[in-house]
């Protein structure tokens, strides 16, 4: 009998062995994070499906309903703007752009930043010096100038915007990751792993990156809002998405100008942006806790 339970425990141990599965279980216990995932899922679903559910589209104008407050009567449930475009569709279409920019560029900055920072920190010495000075030089380039140049040379496109934002946002990540790697590298368990014959790659993948996860996750959740806001800034300058295409940032910018006459133009896109950013923050917080086995 005792042997069979032991056998069972062993089977279980073989199966549930990954950090991921364990973290998932802990995340599921975090109510704020689960609620945020649900809400964010709803927002994403709305943004994807929403435009197909209404007869309006984001660019055509309804001259009978200019500055229409939110109402069910005309089919403009979020109201219309100064040229009679339906705010509901525009918010959904803008959300696609904003979320895409946020997630894609945060992901790009994550991949490049972590790989670069962890490598520099782990190797150390002259290579570290060279890699980090390269980052310093990239930092020193005036970013707006760079983006304007890129737009002039390559023409305006969404892809270019991803590239431009991604090119900058990984720099911070690389610096933070490198600093943390230097600390982790000194830990006795890294020494112990070396002593046990682990290769450099194995140490980065098995020991350094898992210990960086909490930090990385928090930083990514900070990067996503930052990037979404950055996109709206670029759009405002005429370097990002262009009318009639829109994004949450662009909608809010427009809304600010007409705050007195048509407050819904500001309030509704702001609610969407704020709720999304809140969700990312709560999810990030939950993930950080879930990924840290010491914290229970």
């Amino acid at each position, binding site marked *: 009998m005792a042997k069979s339970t032991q056998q069972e425990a*062993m089977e279980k141990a073989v199966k549930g062995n990954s950090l991921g599965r364990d973290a998932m279980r802990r995340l599921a216990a975090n109510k704020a994070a689960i609620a945020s995932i649900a809400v964010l899922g709803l927002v994403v679903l709305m943004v994807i499906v929403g435009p197909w559910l209404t007869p309006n589209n984001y660019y055509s104008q309804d001259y009978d309903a200019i500055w229409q407050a939110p109402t069910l009567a005309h089919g403009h449930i979020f109201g219309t703007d100064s040229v009679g475009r339906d705010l509901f569709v525009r918010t959904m279409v803008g959300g696609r752009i904003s979320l895409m920019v946020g997630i894609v560029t945060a992901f790009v900055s994550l991949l490049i930043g972590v790989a670069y920072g962890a490598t520099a920190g782990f190797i150390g010495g002259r290579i570290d010096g060279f890699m980090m000075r390269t980052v310093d030089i990239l930092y020193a380039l005036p970013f707006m100038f760079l983006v304007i140049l890129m737009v002039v040379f390559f023409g305006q496109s969404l892809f270019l915007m991803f590239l431009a934002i991604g090119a900058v946002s990984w720099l911070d990540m690389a610096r933070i990751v490198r600093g943390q790697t230097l600390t982790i590298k000194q830990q006795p368990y890294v020494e112990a792993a070396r002593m046990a014959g682990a290769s450099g790659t194995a140490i980065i993948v098995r020991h350094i990156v898992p210990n960086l996860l909490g930090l990385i996750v928090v930083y990514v959740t900070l990067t996503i809002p930052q990037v979404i806001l950055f996109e709206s800034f670029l759009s405002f300058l005429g370097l990002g998405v262009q009318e009639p295409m829109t994004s949450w940032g662009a909608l809010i910018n427009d809304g600010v100008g007409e705050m007195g006459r048509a407050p819904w133009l500001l309030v509704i896109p702001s609610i969407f942006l704020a709720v999304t950013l809140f969700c990312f923050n709560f999810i990030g917080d939950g993930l950080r806790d879930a*990924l840290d086995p010491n914290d229970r």
Partner: protein
Amino acid sequence: MLLDVQNLKIDFETHAGRVDAVHDLSFSIDRGEAVGIVGESGSGKSQSVLALMGLLAGNARVSGSAKLASAQAGEPSIELVGAKPRVLRRVRGARIAMIFQDPMTALNPHLKISTQMIELLRTHRGMGRREAMKAAIEMMEAVRIPEAARRIKYYPHQFSGGMRQRVMIAMALSCEPELLIADEPTTALDVTVQDEILDVIAELRERTNTALLLITHDLGVVAGQCSRALVMRAGDLVEHGSIDKVFNAPEAEYTRDLLAAIPRLEG
């Protein structure tokens, strides 16, 4: 002879000039033998073993020779001083394993014990996941951790200090190394736990015929575990002989001082 160290010399290039850590250290260990290195902190005992493993800081210079006998008879022995990283990686963990002083920090806090042990077994012994898990649990039982099959899924912080040191021993011995280097294995532990840990090491060594290089400043531990002892002071080997000789008829003044200063457990 398993390990033969001849004229090992270590110095460090620092901003303040050259620091000699170890001058001219020679000793050897046979298979299954237990040798103690005794000395106060700073005497170069830890640096000597780190040099054998090729794990000294980048500014260290090592000369001399440290030959590890080949795994199979008839093959040439392996020179550890100045060996390529690839060669050393195959020796570390697999043929020479090490236990560290502080068990609280020598395990990765983000990985379960099972993950860390399985990784080791898969790297060095080419086991499959399932097979490695089985071997890991057996090893945990061998170091007398109760309910090993359940506890192997714990994270390091869920173990006490003594239990963690057992885990370290289980990990170190899981690949059946020929030489176990224990660097102050019991210094961070309670006296009662110390004894249990030393017992576990002794028992497993007997079973697998593993040689032991025990580094400590505690003469009592050496007396209990080793057949030969080396006494180091400020990078020099001042005394070298059987336990009986070192304890009862020490040649060096320093050894006599050590014996007088430290309360003896036996002898």
